[in-house]
């Protein structure tokens, strides 16, 4: 009897908390689709907010494409470089290995917002100012400490025999990595890709500084423009539609891959 009351108490508390945490998201979704702004002046549901959002500035498709491009490049560069480097760190001894590991982990100690100003100048020198590629490369570097740590640990956890067997069967080191080991570290790769994607898709301050041309804006930047550009009369309907558009891929990706997200925590990478 006592346990049943306590269980009910827990579920009441849990439900209340769940509602509290879901409410802002649900309200945004609801009001982006409902009301006079959404339904062309009538009550009820409609997609007018999304229509106005699609037509805003250089057009939502441009912003989505830019954001996706940055995310894809950042994820690809992070995954490829940290997989190769993680393998080398775990299995191929070379001079300067520890130094490189320490320098890469130092990226965690140096808050990146403090080096954005010199990065802005440097990207200008190498012709990548106001460039989505330049932005994506910077975002990839920011993910490298986590990626390297994760991939090094993933390769270390694989039995050495696996690689030796492949080598005896006539694989080269590269072939063994590609054909045999990659499958073993796939969970690690998914984790690194997930963290990298969420960070790149949502990044705000780096594009704010690096991108000056409206046609290159990423989605968070375009939405900020929508909010701050029109002084006095913010189009809340379009803004809410924008928040939904920007949050939906992240929520979906997270729900599908949440066990990989949790893996990032428990692998001890945060304690690095």
């Amino acid at each position, binding site marked *: 009897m006592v346990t049943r009351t306590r*269980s009910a108490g*827990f579920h009441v508390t*849990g439900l209340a908390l769940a509602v509290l*945490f*879901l409410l802002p*998201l649900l*309200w*945004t979704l609801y009001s982006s689709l409902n009301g006079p702004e959404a339904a062309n002046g009538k009550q009820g549901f409609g997609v007018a907010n999304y229509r106005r959002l699609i037509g805003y500035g250089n057009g939502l498709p441009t912003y989505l494409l830019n954001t996706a491009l940055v995310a894809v490049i950042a994820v690809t*560069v992070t995954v490829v*470089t*940290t997989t*190769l*480097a993680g*393998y*080398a760190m775990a*299995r*191929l*001894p*070379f*001079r300067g290995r520890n130094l*490189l590991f320490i*320098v*890469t982990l130092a990226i965690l*100690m*140096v*808050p990146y*917002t*403090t*080096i954005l*100003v*010199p990065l*802005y*100048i440097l990207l200008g020198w*190498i012709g990548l100012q106001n460039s989505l590629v330049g932005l994506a490369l910077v975002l990839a*570097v920011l993910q*490298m400490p986590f990626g*390297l740590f994760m991939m090094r640990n993933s390769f*270390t956890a694989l039995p*050495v025999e696996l*690689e030796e067997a492949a080598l005896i069967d006539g694989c080269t*080191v590269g072939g063994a990595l590609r054909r045999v080991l990659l499958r073993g570290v796939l*969970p690690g790769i998914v984790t690194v890709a997930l963290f990298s994607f*969420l960070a790149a898709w*949502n*990044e*705000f*301050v780096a594009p704010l*500084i690096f991108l000056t041309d409206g046609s290159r804006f990423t989605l968070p930047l375009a*939405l*900020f423009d929508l*909010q*701050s550009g029109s002084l006095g009369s913010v189009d809340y309907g379009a*803004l*809410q539609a924008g*928040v939904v558009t920007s*949050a939906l891929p992240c929520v979906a990706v*997270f729900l599908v891959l*949440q066990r990989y997200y949790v893996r990032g925590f428990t*692998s001890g990478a*945060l304690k690095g």
Partner: protein
Amino acid sequence: MISLSSPTRSPAPASPAPTARRAPISRGRRRLGILYVAPMTLLVAVLFVIPLGLMVWMSFNHWPLLGASAPNGVTDYQALRDPLFIRAVWFTLKYTAVTTVVLGLIAFGLALLMHQDRRRIGTYRTVLFLPSAVGLASTSLLFYGLFNADGSPLNNLVRAIGLGHVDWLGSTGNALGSTVLMITWRFAGFYMLILMTGLQSIDPALYEAARIDGANRWQTMWRVTLPLLRPTIALTMVLSVTGSLLAFDQFFILTGGRHYTATVVIDIYREAFLSQDLGRAAAVSVATLVVLVIVNVVQMRLIRREGR
């Protein structure tokens, strides 16, 4: 592997690389190692090490956003005596203290509540964590609507309980409180998850022993849970303090730094792109970086010592 739905055990930490024992070390493998780390090394060197050096160099130069630069000694560091900067430092420290305490307590409460074996607990955890998947800029825009739109549930609620119209972002105090509210919503699940991994690493036998010794819940909390959770609590504090000291998105979007809610990073942004003085921005960046590295090193030391 643990998951949000069944967090029962965490994997053993990976053992150190067995390379020294087994793998044949040939010159070829060494060369291959250098080849494999080359792409990452190149990117880290160009986009991290060089900018770091460049930042220090810039801080000793007159460096306008447009036009030629020239060395000017330590003149740029006068930015640290600017009243606007000093105000930003105080505001940032206040924000950091409030956020760390509020967020820490709420996340700890959630972790205790959600660290139980119950039916459907995984769903609750997922829901509480969901805001952490939304970007901080999107969150800020979402709450900008929640605070300012007339028909938002927040404003309806406030009106229903008879408080009339509340200007959520209209003064320093209001903006601070509203932002902490938003940050708590966004990060509570994230810190809850970290604290839960700490709770899981506590040996259940210790609770059993405390129960047999007749300890009540309160004593168990103070004598068993909290001491053993200290490294995890310290870790969440490092993350929260560092993150708050570098706060940018939330205030830049919610208030634009108005009502004296500019943070240190907003000050750097203003020096660089409104005053168009990159040298002064670099000087403030160098100072911020030095302080943060010291804070991080001290906190890491404390974690290590307390972790034993």
